[in-house]
Each structure stands twice: as C-alpha cells, then as structure tokens.
C-alpha cells in the first residue's frame, strides 16, 4: 500500500501542495483530479522522489520509501519524452536496465508490450518518426516495463485515441488484479468515475474531497426534481423545502431531509397529476465543481 502522509511543498512563497494525505491501497485504482495548478504533478513528483518535499513523507507498506523502493515504481511524468533520435526498442531496453532488469529480460518484455500495443513492426523505428499517439504508447510501455510494484501515472490518458484508452484501461486493470496500487491523474472525470475505486480531489494544493464515487456523491446535498401538469410556484412555501431552480411546471428542490421530500410528493399528488419525481444523482464533475468552488 502506498500512503501519502502530510506532504507539503513550497516554492518560495507559493504553496504547491499543502498537507496532502491519502492512500492508494494494494490492488486499487485511485483517481487524482483537480484543476491545472491544483498540485497533482507536484504531489506525484514528490511520491517519485524527483522533487524533495518541504515536509511530510511517503510510506510504502508502512515504512518511508527509499530510493530502492521507488526504483520499482512505474512512473509516467506529465511531460512526456523519450530520446527522439533513437530506436524505440533500444531505449526501452535502456530504461529497463536502469530499473535493474537484465538487457535480455528488458528486450523480451518491451518487445511483447510493443506488440500488444500494435507497435510490433516498429521496433527499430526512431521515436521521432512515430505518431504522437504511438509515442504515448511507447511512454506507457516505459512506465510498466520493469514489473512495477506501484504505478504513478500523470495524465496517462491524455492524447490517446479511444482504442488506446481501452488498451490502457485494460493494462491498468491487469496491474490492480495483481495487487499493484495504481494512482493516476486525469481531467477526464467520466473515465475516472468508471475506472477508479476511489478519487482524491485536489484544489489549491489541498485535498478537498476523497473517497469512492459513492461516498463523494453521498456528501453532495440531496436534490429532487418535481414535474407536474400545472405551475409549481406553490413549492416555494412548502415546509422544509429549498427551491434551487423553478421553471413553470418543473422545479428542482433541496429538501431538508427525506421526510420533507415525501411530504412534498404527497402535496403535489393532492394538487394534481405528477409527471416526474426523481432523486438527482450528481455527476462527478458537479461534485468536483462543488468542492473546488
């Protein structure tokens, strides 16, 4: 398990990450969301030891991470890059060796992964001759090459076509299935919602919300939509009800509790036909907007 414990990083007067704490349990996928400049990249760099924290620490299975442990993490930095003028396979082997693999093991694994991502016939192509999407695939391979014990991926899905998004998702699921904790950041909230076991929302360097998407939704206020055949102006006076939005026969309300909601429904039914009475499940992006406001 990867534990991030009170990580803080200052750049001069700017606090890029303030007391960031969360966990990435073994075999779980955690989505890291937040606007640009929220501190996601800074936090991931500190997890990887590329950036020294001002305070706080990163724990691996309960003990502070060491360079040896971090060397076994797979990392995909926000800024992508491989040697532009070198063959793809050659530099993947090099990176594998730096992670402690033997040259032949690295070659075998890289060849297998390149084949799987449809690059089997481009092994000796220079990176600069590959399309951006294919360079991105090579980058993904670089991060999972050394059989990592944990994955830290900064925006792994950006720039991928739908087919590659599916391949990437599958690859990540394979890792979680083996018990590898996976942390990735993304702006694609639907994707995060679909893939992740839990979500950490960062805003101005602070964790403003975290938990499973169900837990996050539970924190959002209860809302119902009521649609009748007549005007719904009377709802404004209903006890325990706050009107969020009213538009003729349709009204969006925030009841104080479940009882108030049920009383509202009974009142509406007494006044005439009810076309719709539904619980509004907030989307992740609405929750995100809410907490990051």
């Amino acid at each position: 398990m990867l534990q991030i414990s009170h990580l803080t990083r200052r750049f001069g007067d700017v606090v890029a990450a303030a007391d960031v704490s969360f966990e990435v349990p073994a075999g779980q996928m955690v989505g890291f969301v937040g606007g640009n400049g929220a501190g996601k990249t800074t936090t991931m760099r500190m997890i990887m030891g590329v950036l020294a924290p001002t305070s706080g620490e990163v724990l691996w299975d309960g003990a502070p991470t060491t360079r040896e442990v971090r060397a076994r993490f797979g990392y995909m930095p926000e800024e992508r890059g491989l040697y532009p003028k070198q063959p793809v396979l050659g530099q993947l082997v090099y990176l594998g060796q730096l992670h402690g693999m033997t040259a032949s093991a690295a070659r075998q694994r890289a060849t297998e992964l390149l084949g799987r991502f449809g690059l089997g016939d481009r092994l000796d192509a220079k990176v600069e001759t590959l399309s951006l999407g294919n360079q991105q695939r090579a980058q993904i391979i670089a991060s999972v090459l050394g059989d990592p014990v944990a994955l830290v991926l900064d925006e792994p899905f950006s720039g991928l076509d739908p087919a590659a998004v599916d391949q990437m998702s599958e690859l990540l699921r394979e890792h979680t299935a083996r018990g590898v904790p996976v942390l990735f950041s993304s702006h694609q909230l639907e994707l995060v919602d679909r893939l992740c076991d839990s979500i950490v929302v960062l805003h101005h360097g602070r964790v403003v919300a975290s938990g499973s998407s169900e837990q996050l939704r539970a924190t959002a206020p209860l809302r119902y939509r009521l649609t009748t055949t007549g005007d719904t102006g009377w709802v404004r006076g209903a006890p325990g009800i706050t009107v969020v939005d009213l538009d003729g026969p349709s009204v969006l309300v925030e009841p104080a509790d479940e009882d108030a909601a049920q009383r509202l429904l009974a009142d509406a039914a007494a006044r005439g036909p009810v076309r719709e009475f539904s619980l509004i499940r907030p989307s992740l992006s609405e929750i995100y907007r809410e907490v990051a406001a």
Partner: protein
Amino acid sequence: MNRAWSVVALREIMVRLRDRNFLMSTGFTLVFLLGAILAQQFFGNRAMSYDIGVEGPEGARIVAQAQELARAEDPEVRLTSTELGDAAAVEEAARVDDVDYGLLATADGWELVDEGPTAGDLQMLVGEVVREDALGRNAEAAGTDLESLLAGSAVTARDLAEGDGGSTFLAFVLGLVFAMLFYMSSLLFGMQIASSVVEEKQSRLVEILAAAIPVRTLLLGKVVGNTVLALGQLVLIVAVGLVGLAFTDYDVALPGLAGGIAWYVPFFVVGFLALACIWAAAGSLASRTEDLQSTTMPLTMLLVVVFVVSLNLEGVWRVVASYVPITSTILMPMRVLEGEAAWWEPWVALVVVLAFSLVTVRLGARLYQRSLLHTSGALSWRRAMTLTD
C-alpha cells in the same frame, strides 16, 4: 543499482560510436594527420638524388667526391655520374632530362648546366668539392698542403640540448599538437556531455531517469562514458601519429620523448575530468539545445584562454602556469618533453589538478542536481548557485 552508471556510460559510448558525424570527423583527423606526416617526409626531407652528366673521368671524379662528402652528412644522398664524351652531348642530355644536370669544365673552374635554375644544395656541394680540389692543387704548387692552408678556418655547430639535435624541434611540435588535441577534445566531448544532458532535459526524459536512478549516478555515467571516448580518440590519434613518425627521420628522437608523451595521458584525463562536471552543469542550465551556446560560453572562453595563454607564456610565468590547473594540462607535459622539468614537477602539478578537479566535480554535480529538473527556461549560472533542491 550500483551498476546503473555503467549502463549510462555504455549508452553514451554506443550512441556516439553509431553517430556518423563523430566517426567521420575522427577518420578525417587521422587521415589528415597521416597525410601531414607523409607530406612532410616526402617534400621536406627528400634526400638528394641526382644523375649528373659529365664529359669524362675528370668530371666523374668530382661527382664521386661530392657523393663522399655528402654521405658524411646524410647517408641517403645519391649522386651518380654518366660519362657522355663531349660538352655538346652533356648539354643535350641535360636539356632532354636524360640526366638531372650536366657538369662541364670551364676556363677557370666548373659549371652545372640545366634548363632552368640549379638546385642550391647541389651547387654548394659541388662548389665545395671543386674548391677543395683546386685549393689542394694550388697549395701543392705553393709548396704547402691543404691541411696547413685550412688550419684555423673550421666553423662547426654544437647543439647544447641534451640528446639528439632533432628532438628540440620535435618537442615543440609535439607540445603544440598535444595542446591542440586537448583543446579540441575537451571542446568536442565537453559539448557532447552538455548536449546529452540538455537532450534528456528537453525531451523530458530526465524525470523518468531521475525516478529510476540517482541523478549523481546519471552524471557519473555520462562523465565516465565521455571521458573514455575522449581518451580513446586521443590514444588512437597519438598512436597513429607515432606510428607515422616512426617512418620518418624523426624516429631516432622518439625514444627520448617517450617520457613526456606518457605524461600527457594522465594530464589529459584529469584536465578533462576537471571540466567534465562543469560541462554537465552547463547542459543542465539550458532548457533547450538553443540555450547551450550561452550556457557553455564561460567554458568555451576558458578553453580558448587556456590554449592561447599556455602557448604564449615565457620564462617564470610559464613555469608557474605549468602548475596552475588546466594550463598545466598543456604546459607541464610540454616542459617534460623539452627536458626542462625536474622529475618531481609533473607529480606535483598532477596532484594540484586532481585537487582542483575534486572541487569542480562537486560544484558541477551540485549545480547539475539542482537545475536538472528546472524545465521552464534557461537558468543563469548565478541563479543556479542559489537554487535549493
């Protein structure tokens, strides 16, 4: 992980060895060097070899004496005579180049005939023989002999340098060549270190590398790889140069210079190492290849100054500079070559430059570590000094 530096070093070497520009420039240097040595040998040191047409035995005797006199100086001189009967035949043979020159008796001596000017060395040689011959006869006629007549008139030259006379000039040339080699290699491979650093920075690979291995290990690998390359290229050039020299007349002087040449290697390696980490720091200050020119400027300037100053110092300043790091790389082996330095002097200078490089390696490594992950724009040297991790 402790072998990671060798993986990095090996990559630096392999990338360079597959670089066509690098291979071609090394090849050109070698061809140029061999060409220069061979041309020098061919044009500068070609031994005199002439066939001289004469009328009869009298002329042939002069040529034979000239040959004997010349052999005392240079055993490879070859003068032969061809007897052609009369003056007209000699002139004709010289005109159509059947012989190189004709030698004809005149009323008050001899003349060399040819179409066009006569070689000065041959004219001096024949002149000396004829003069001695005439003096001998005149002396006999005056009742004395040649020796008494010439007594007290000898002028000879004595070389005060130890060993062979040719080595002073050769030592100078070798010193100059080594100075140029050091200048070129440190510029070439220093730039290579800087640009391989900025390549990783510009292509954003550095974060992946820094997450996998310590930044110091990355630096160590780069420095080792490029030092091995620089040294390898140097050894190749020197070996080809020495083999080339062995085929020239300078071969006799080489054994006396071996000590100086051997000193050059450690000075080169340490001198290169002293700057290597600073080159890496210069690379890490840049964020794009285009910035390199300005971030490496202090280093290129330094090398130019070292090169120019080393070759222009004289007297006591030259001795002082032969202990000062970087200029010592050029001057100390040069002084050893010239036979000017005592046995302990190169050792002291080497210790000084080693101590100096310990400082520069630490400084360079620190700057490199601090600025490597700053990818937003080039840093100034001053700013990099004040960065924190």
